[in-house]
């Protein structure tokens, strides 16, 4: 019996440490494959359906391998575990890891590393205290709380400041960004929390990071990075279905008017406080500030995404874009004259240089194999250059690393195969494993496609949606989500439902996402209406959520510029972009959704998809073969019956 088998056995470490632990074959299968990949330094792709217990199945072989190496003096076996979100990082670090370390009597040093924005920047805190911008009362109160916490903290992790709201405007003033970090010129570098956290991570046996951090490191997108991954022997990605998109983002470039604005603000601050003699400094910064605001005004009022290559062809956009360059260049010339007068202005100088380089990247829209796109927020424009594929780069990296790579998630396979996932990352030669969930989906859940739905553009659509939702809301006693692809339909349905049901309707936009979810969980009969992306990362357990109504299959919008660019590319290769890109993406999104609805052996739920294409198009088959075997029906009444029996 191998060490891994023993750990999972009836007499093993887990059975001893965890009350009610019972060995599960699927979990052991996965653990054995993970152990093999670590030993042979191979890559492995595992889909482990919800409830398989995949966290233990990768942590245990990894820590056992580390322990074995330590005991036989073979040096340190370094492990990196990367998860999808900060919350998952914390859960892994504070809950799962301590339990397993204890169970295995492992001495492995573990560390948690978060992104830069999570650590207090002592320099900026002091700067801010001295200059004291105009703060409103709330922010000022938050600032006072942060300051008193800052005196006592050891980690500098702002997650510890529990009495200040997560999104408080005070945080950007007391944390750093890649742009405004003074790095080696910083007077507080010896006490820097970020550097301390990184050093700890570099020494640790096992580091918990998130995908954004991982790829920032890999793509060398932050100073002091690029040190962590080359040292690792084992790389584990949980929620791995997200990484292709995140990797693209980091292997790409971005240029935003926010960076320009931040630079101008900082230059102005230096000008007003220390370099008051250089009048041009103020003028140049204000000029650029104005030009970048005007640049935003060229785009539509409502936030959107679009093709930058096309916009750049239009004269008024290219003209405004050229003005940005002129003013940025002018500011650069002025700052240059002040170089080495103080650290802050030197930092501004470096940023101006970088921004000029970034500008050129976005001006060269003819670059091949790239998508150029923009997105706008209410105040800013971000230009992006994204590689159409990261397969070459990433695949090469994996091959050359000499490490074991584990990719796992509850949703990786499409129609029983991993080709979609593996080809995106250039890891086609990986071993793979598909483990079904232990849940009895046929008993626990239903997939319902209502009959006679009006077409998506029909003006009776909202009415039809609210009519079919009504009995389901009643039957589920409000434990119901309604998710929409458009805000317009969401508001129409909300209005209609308000007349029809007594349940409180929580509509996205009424309050922040977190607050909305809290209200939903607290108020027994409240129904939540939101847009489709809202569901991502939402974790509502048990009978609080038994019914999810989705208005359309989750195909990416054909207007998405990155999707368009990728589709063009696939077409050029003579393949069908729908089958290659859109379909697998939608399948994974829907599988994610089912995983959120049924989280436990005792969970029950109904997923209603108001999109009959699932029934009448040939690709329905791909969805059905990829989703868990839920009971399928087209009868709303029957579904309502199922729901009302749950309570």
């Amino acid at each position: 019996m191998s060490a891994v088998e023993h750990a999972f056995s009836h007499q093993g470490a887990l059975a001893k440490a965890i009350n009610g632990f019972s060995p599960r074959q699927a979990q052991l299968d996965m653990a054995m494959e993970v152990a093999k990949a670590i030993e042979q330094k191979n890559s492995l792709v595992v889909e482990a359906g919800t409830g398989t217990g995949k966290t233990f199945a990768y942590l245990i072989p990894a820590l056992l391998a580390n322990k074995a190496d330590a005991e036989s003096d073979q040096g340190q076996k370094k492990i990196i575990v990367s998860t999808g979100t900060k919350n998952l990082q914390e859960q892994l670090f504070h809950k799962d890891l301590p339990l397993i370390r204890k169970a295995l009597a492992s001495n492995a040093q573990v560390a948690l590393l978060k992104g830069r924005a999570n650590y207090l920047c002592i320099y900026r805190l002091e700067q801010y205290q001295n200059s004291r911008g105009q703060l409103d009362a709330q922010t000022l109160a938050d600032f006072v709380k942060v300051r008193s916490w800052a005196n006592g903290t050891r980690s500098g992790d702002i997650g510890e400041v529990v009495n200040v709201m997560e999104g408080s405007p005070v945080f950007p003033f007391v944390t750093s960004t890649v742009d405004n970090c003074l790095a080696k010129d910083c007077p507080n570098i010896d006490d820097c929390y970020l550097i301390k956290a990184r050093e700890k991570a570099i020494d640790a046996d096992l580091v918990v990071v998130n995908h954004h951090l991982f790829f920032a490191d890999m793509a060398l997108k932050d100073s002091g990075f690029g040190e962590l991954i080359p040292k690792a022997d084992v790389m584990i990605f949980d929620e791995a279905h997200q990484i292709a998109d995140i990797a693209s983002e980091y292997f790409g470039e971005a240029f935003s008017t926010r960076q320009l604005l931040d630079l101008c603000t900082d230059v102005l601050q230096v000008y007003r406080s220390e370099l008051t003699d250089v009048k041009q400094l103020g003028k140049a910064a204000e000029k650029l500030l104005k030009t970048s605001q005007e640049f935003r005004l060229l785009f539509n009022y409502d936030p959107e995404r679009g093709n930058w290559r096309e916009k750049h062809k239009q004269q008024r956009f290219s003209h405004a874009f050229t003005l940005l360059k002129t003013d940025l260049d002018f500011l650069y010339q002025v700052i240059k004259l002040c170089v080495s007068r103080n650290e802050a202005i030197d930092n501004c100088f470096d940023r101006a240089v970088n921004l000029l380089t970034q500008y050129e990247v976005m001006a060269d829209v003819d670059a091949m194999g790239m998508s150029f796109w923009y997105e706008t927020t209410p105040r800013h424009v971000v230009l992006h250059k994204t590689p159409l594929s990261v397969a070459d780069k990433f695949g090469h990296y994996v091959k050359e690393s000499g490490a074991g790579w584990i990719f796992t998630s509850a949703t990786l396979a499409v129609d029983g195969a991993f080709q979609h996932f593996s080809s995106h990352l250039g890891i086609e030669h990986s071993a793979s494993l598909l483990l079904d969930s232990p849940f009895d989906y046929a008993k626990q859940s239903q997939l319902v496609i209502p009959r006679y739905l009006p077409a998506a553009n029909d003006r009776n659509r909202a009415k039809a949606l609210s009519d079919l939702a009504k009995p389901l809301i009643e039957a589920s006693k409000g434990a119901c989500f309604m998710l929409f692809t458009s805000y317009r339909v969401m508001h129409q349905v909300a209005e209609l439902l308000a007349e029809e049901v007594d349940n409180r309707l929580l509509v996205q936009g009424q309050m922040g996402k977190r607050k909305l979810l809290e209200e939903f969980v607290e108020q027994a009969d409240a129904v939540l209406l939101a847009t489709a992306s809202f569901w991502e990362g939402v974790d509502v357990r048990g009978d609080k959520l038994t019914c999810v109504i989705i208005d359309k299959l989750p195909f990416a919008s054909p207007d998405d510029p990155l999707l368009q660019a990728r589709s063009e590319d696939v077409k050029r290769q003579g393949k069908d972009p729908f089958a290659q890109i859109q379909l697998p993406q939608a399948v994974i999104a829907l599988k994610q959704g089912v995983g959120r609805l049924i989280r436990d052996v005792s969970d029950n739920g109904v997923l209603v998809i108001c999109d009959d294409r699932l029934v009448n198009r040939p690709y329905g088959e791909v969805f059905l073969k990829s989703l868990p075997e839920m009971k399928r029906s087209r009868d709303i009444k029957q579904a309502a019956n199922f729901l009302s029996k749950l309570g």
Partner: protein
Amino acid sequence: MQTQAMFYSIEEQSKIAGVSEQQLHLYYACLQAAYFYRQNQRVFIYTQDQESAHNIDEMLWAFDPTSFVPHNLIGEGPKQGAAVEISWQAPTNRRAVLINLTSDVPNFANQFSHLIDFVPADETLKEQARNRFRTCRQWNFNVAHQVASAPQPIDTTS
């Protein structure tokens, strides 16, 4: 063009685990729809009334995913209908295969190149089926008969 009519009778060897006797001929109707769909033939399933149309719709949707059949009821779905259309009214577009689940042979049956019909075990229904069989003869269809039996695995690669 002569319509090829095939009558499948439901007998002892037709039984399928998990399918009730009353539903057996519907199950075989679904199998036939799945078969013709995979032959790239468009199918029209004609039912007695809306309720029976819903029954067959429910059954097709719940069918084994490896024999998935894209289908729609009359009054929903794409303009020209899906590969398989279910209706209790006369067809509105041209299709090759008619699966008849009503008590009579519909008068539009001769527009189809294939007619699939069933002879259920129930005596009354069996008698009705015999009448349909005779009607098909009278209408000069090329009529054949065989016992419905547990299916060969359907080749999904074709």
